[in-house]
């Protein structure tokens, strides 16, 4: 039995955050799940194509499930920006 943590993550009865696609356990709800995901940071124009005529400093930061490779979250960031760490207490 799980409930939703975000659009792409679930949380089980023990408070463990899981990938909703493959149920891979990432970490407990007290921890920062993004530290347990695969992180990619790339210039936005390179990732999204020629309509994204943005400043070269703008990064698309993406977090993937380390088990199934599903995309779990995306952030617009400048280099060195902290992760946007959301918490859900239920």
């Amino acid at each position, binding site marked *: 039995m799980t*409930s*939703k*943590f*975000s*659009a*792409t993550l679930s949380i089980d009865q023990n408070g463990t955050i899981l990938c909703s696609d493959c149920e891979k356990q990432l970490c407990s709800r007290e921890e920062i799940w993004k530290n347990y995901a*695969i*992180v*990619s940071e790339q210039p*936005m124009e390179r*990732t*999204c*194509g*020629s*309509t*994204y*005529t*943005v*400043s070269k400093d*703008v990064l*698309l930061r*993406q*977090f*993937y499930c*380390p088990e*199934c*490779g*599903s*995309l*779990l*979250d*995306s*952030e*617009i*960031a*400048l280099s060195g*920006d902290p992760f*946007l*760490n*959301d*918490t*859900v*207490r*239920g």
Partner: protein
Amino acid sequence: MDPITFSIIRHRLFRIVDEAVITLKHVSGSAITNEGHDLMVSLYRADGSLLMGGVGFLHHLTSAAEACKSIIRNFSGNINEGDIFLLNCPYTAALHTSDIYLIAPIHHNGVLVAWSACFVHVYDIGAMNPGGFSPDSNDIFTEGFSSPGLKLVDKGEIRKDIMNTILNMVRSPEMVALDMSSMIACNNVAKDRMQSLIDKYTPKVVDKACSLLISQSEKLFKERLAELPDGCWHSRQYFDVKGQTFKVLLKMSKEGEKIVFDFSGSSAQSQYGINCSRWASWGGLFAPLFPLLCYDITWNEGVIRPVKMIAPEGSVVNATRPAPVSIATVGAIQAVNNAACVCISKMLSASDKYSKEATAVWHGSHFAIFMFGKNQRGTQSIGILTETFGGAAGARAIGDGVDVGGEVPNPISRMANVETMEATFPIRYLFRRRLKDSGGPGLHRGGTGAEFAITPHDAPDGGINYVISGKGTEYPMSDGLGGGYPGAPSNYLWVKTNEALESGVPLVAYPNSIEQIPGKKEKISWGVFPLVGLDSLYVGWNGGGGYGDPLSRDCDSVARDVKNGVVSNVIAEKVYGVVVDNGKVIHKETNFLRKKLKRERLEMGKINDI
């Protein structure tokens, strides 16, 4: 109270607002009001608290409440039947000087029982730059006429000395006079209908229903908050102005029946007018909150009570006078709209019951382009290119965003057709269409923005000028959700065809794309520019954010998007992992490509481990 009477009165209040909006549109002569729907009408209680929020730009609902309260404080003992007050000072309650509030007390048998308030973005306000958005202004003093409150109509008589003084300070006074008339008419209709309602049901019953309506909204909103998970959600908006970067940071905390929006860490206020005042940020966070969390709850004081805001003084979201704020509505306020939309949607996503209501950001950045100059009839035209109200819907948990599908803060925004704009200004459209690859990729795709180009036509002065106070060109502002990509940023180009022809480049009679227009393309976003001779202005506007993983998007939907010209083959393959040929999915190659892209993601992780 008898539930049927209560329901009838609630619906009548809604209809009063609706009819007042129609009046505003029918009397105002400007495209920004009657085509773009840059307007608002709402009803307020006798103490100025919000009773029935109307449609239009929703960040005005709470600001106009503040305006009512300010008038009540400052005109105590001098508020009479038939009066109408004007307030447009952003440091008192308004959002920027050009959004004028006209506020009218509603009396019944001599007793003050309610207020109506409305705004339109007036044709001109006498700021440094025509149209109200004033990129050349570096303080509030140069942003045009600004009043913390004055009596414009005294017991049913327009105060001509005041009206003439205002009209003496603005460009195109005849059009501003029409705007003023539209707001007076709107308030008169609201007052008349409200009085009829009270005549029918008695003051006591209507007052009881109004009081109940507010406590009902508070109860329902608190119940909804209690159903949603407790937690803390973050968002970050960057926006660029004249080479500088500004940031709006938001932490939204929800616990039980309370919700707090904290903007600590946002940039210090700017020398440019993209700042907003505290009341503007307050309104800015309610603009997405009303439709996303209270779509079935009456928008009034009851919804406001459980909400708190922290906005550091001297920041872009709580500027200190005399900082300029003329561009607030498309600057810091819109960043607040977007940030609040993201945090609210993340909270919805964490709810088993409400996750389907979540949405990525819609049309994250307005392009407020005001044209001004002599028109084909030899008179002056000032006005906005209403395409900015066309918007682009964000993708939602349940489906794609609608292309050119509007925006969250104004549920009735829309744009004029090409012919209306060509009749208003001495210009000709070269093309206007949906912009390929502008909708943020995702499981559900963000709605596209659009692109168009205009060139002078039949202009007595050889052309026209325009004011542009854009941002959202260096940073996308329509954030995606649940991994979805942001929508593409906006792009404004001054195409210098005059120069090109002088150097011998051949003229293209009917160019149908930006590539076909001859001339150097200069990226612009801020200031006043000429549009003369054969030069043109190209605008590509931002798409809505995407929702979810684009590698999970239905392959046939990607093929349909490619066939319809809204997604390129390059993005279909690179981002969606779908190979499309002749409008059909090539399944074997698609399966191979999607597996490869997933593998590459996982291998990236292995590299990090090493």
